[in-house]
C-alpha cells in the first residue's frame, strides 16, 4: 500500500510539473491542481498509513494520527481558493492580453500557428 500511494503521488507531481511547464494558462492551471493534489496526499500520509482505524484516542487500539487530516483539510481549502483565483486571473489575462500564452505573447502564438499551418501544408 505504501508503494501504491508513493507511486500515485509521484505520478501526480510528475504530471503536475510537466503541465506547469507548458506555455498556455489552461495546462498550467491543471498542472498546479495536480501538484497540489500530490502535496495534499503527501501531507495526509505524513501521519502514516493505517487501515480501518479511527482517529480518536481510546476508540481503537492503534488510532491513526488526526493532525495530518486537519492539516490536509486546511491545505485543500486554501488550494481550492487559490485555484479559483487563478482561473479568474487567467480569464482576465485572456481578455486583456488577447492570448492565453503565459507571457501574453500574441506574436509567439501567431508564429506557432503559422508553423502548424506550414506543417499541415507539407503533409
Amino acid at each position, binding site marked *: 500500500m505504501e508503494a501504491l500511494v508513493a507511486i500515485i503521488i509521484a505520478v501526480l507531481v510528475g504530471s503536475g510539473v510537466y503541465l506547469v511547464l507548458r506555455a498556455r494558462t489552461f495546462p498550467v492551471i491543471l498542472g498546479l491542481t495536480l501538484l497540489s493534489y500530490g502535496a495534499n496526499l503527501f501531507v495526509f500520509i505524513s501521519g502514516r498509513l493505517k487501515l480501518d482505524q479511527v482517529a480518536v484516542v481510546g476508540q481503537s487500539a492503534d488510532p491513526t494520527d488526526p493532525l*495530518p487530516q486537519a*492539516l490536509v483539510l486546511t491545505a485543500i481549502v*486554501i488550494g481550492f481558493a487559490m485555484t479559483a483565483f487563478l482561473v479568474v486571473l487567467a480569464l482576465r*489575462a485572456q481578455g*486583456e*492580453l488577447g492570448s492565453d500564452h503565459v*507571457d*501574453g505573447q500574441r506574436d509567439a502564438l501567431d508564429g506557432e500557428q503559422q508553423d502548424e499551418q506550414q506543417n499541415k501544408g507539407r503533409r
Partner: protein
Amino acid sequence: MSNWIMAPILIPALAGMMLLLEVRERHWLRRVTGLTATLALVPVSILLFRQAATGDIQVYSLGDWPAPFGIVLVLDQLSALMVLLTSVLAVPALLYASHGDDRLGPNFHSLFQMQLMGINGAFLTGDLFNLFVFFEVLLIASYGLALHGRGPARVRAGLHYVVLNLIGSAVFLLALSLIYGATGTLNMADFAARAAELEGPALTLVKVAGLLLCVVFGLKAALFPLYFWLPATYASATAGVAALFAVMTKVGIYALLRVHGLAFSDGALAGLGDMALWTVSLLTLGLATVGVFGARRLGELVAYLVVMSVGTLVAALAWGTEEAISGALFYLLHSTLICAGLFLLADLVSRGRGDAGDTLMAGPRPPAAGLLGALFFIGAVAVAGLPPLSGFLGKVMLLQAVPAPLYWVLILAGGLLAVVGLSRAGSTLFWRAGEPMADVVLNKGRLAAVIVLLAMAPAMVLLGGPLSAVTQSVAAQWAQPDLYIHAVLGYPGGAQ
C-alpha cells in the same frame, strides 16, 4: 503576561472585515477606517517592542492548548522589531495610496488590512503550519493588491507571480509534511529541540525538508534563481502597494532567519544550507547589480535595488555570526524603508511626466523638480550606501562583520554601479528634461508620504547609536535559540 501580542493580528483582521461591510461608494469612510487601523498599529507595536526589549520572550497559547500541541504566538525581540518595521512602513504607504490610487478598484483598503494581518501573523507565529497559513493570507491579499488597478502589464506580471507562489505553496506543504512525518511536530521550538537529536533516515528526511524550506523562503525573499518575478511585479504594481511589498521580501528573510537560528544553528542540522545560501545570495547580489545598471524604468531600477538588498542580507545570514546578523538587521530596516520611499517617489515623478512615465528617457520636467530631485538625491545616496546616510552605516557594519573578500568586492562594486545607475537615472529625469507639462500639480499628501519615508535615512544616522544597540540586542537573543525553546516549551499553561 499581556494579550497585546494578539493586537497586531486582530486590529487589521477586524478592520479588514469592517471595510468589507462598507459597500457604498463612501471612500472617505474607507480611508478613515483603514488609516485609523494602520495608525493604531504603530503604538501597539511600539508597546510590544518595549515589552520584548526587556529580554523576556512572551508566549501566547491560542485556545490555552499547551505548547507543542496547540498553536503558539511568540514575541521575541526579532519578531517585535519586524512588526514595528511593518507598521512604520504601512502608514506612509497607505497615506500615499489614499490620495487617489485606492479608488482604482473596489476593496483596496480591505485587502491592505488583510495583507498587514498576514505579514504580522507570519512574524509572530511560533508554529510552522501556522506560518504556512499566514503566508497564504498575505499572498492572497498581495495577489489582489498587485492586480489593483487595471492594465495588461499588471495582469501579465500578476499571473507569473501567482503561479510561482502557488508552486511555492505546494513545496512548502511537502516540506512541512516531511518535518511532521520525521519529527512528529510542527511547533518551531519543539522541532528545533527534536531536530538536534535526530539521526539515521529521519535526519536525512529533515535535511531535505530544511532545504525545501530554504527554497520556499528563498522564493518569497526573491533569491537567485527565484527573483525573476520581482522586478516586473513590483514595477507594475501601484506605488503604495509596491512600497508595502518592500517588506514582503523581508518576510522571507525573517522566516529564513527564524528557522535558521532555531534549528540550523547547532545540533544535527548545524550549518544546513549555509554554503548554498552564501553562493546563491552572492549571485543574487551580482545579478541585481547588473539589473540596476540596465533598468529602463525607474520602478524597475528600485525593484532591482530591493533584490540587491536581499542578496546583501542573505549573505550575512549565511555567514551567521552575531555581528553579521546585527548589521544585517540594521541594513534590513534601512533598505526596506528607503526602497519603499523610492517606489513612491518613482510614481510621483512619473505622474508629472505624462506619457514618458517613469521610463529613463528625456521627457517633460516633473513639477517641483528641485524638491523631487533633492528627495531623489537623498534616497539615491542612502540606498547606494554613500556617506553620510543610513545605507553607509549599514554597509560598514556588514563589511566589518563579514570579512570575506568576495563579499567586499560585490558590495563595493555593487555600490559603485548603483551610484552610476542612479545618477544616470536622476540626471535623465531631472536635468535633461524638457518643458514641464501645463496642468500637473504636485499632490501634497503624496509628497508628505515620500518625505516621511526618505527622512528615515538621516533619522537612522542620527539615531545610529541607539538603533545599532537595539539590533545588537536582537541579534544576541537570536543567537541563543535555547532561550526561545525554553520560553515556548517551559510554560505549561497559556496566557497567565
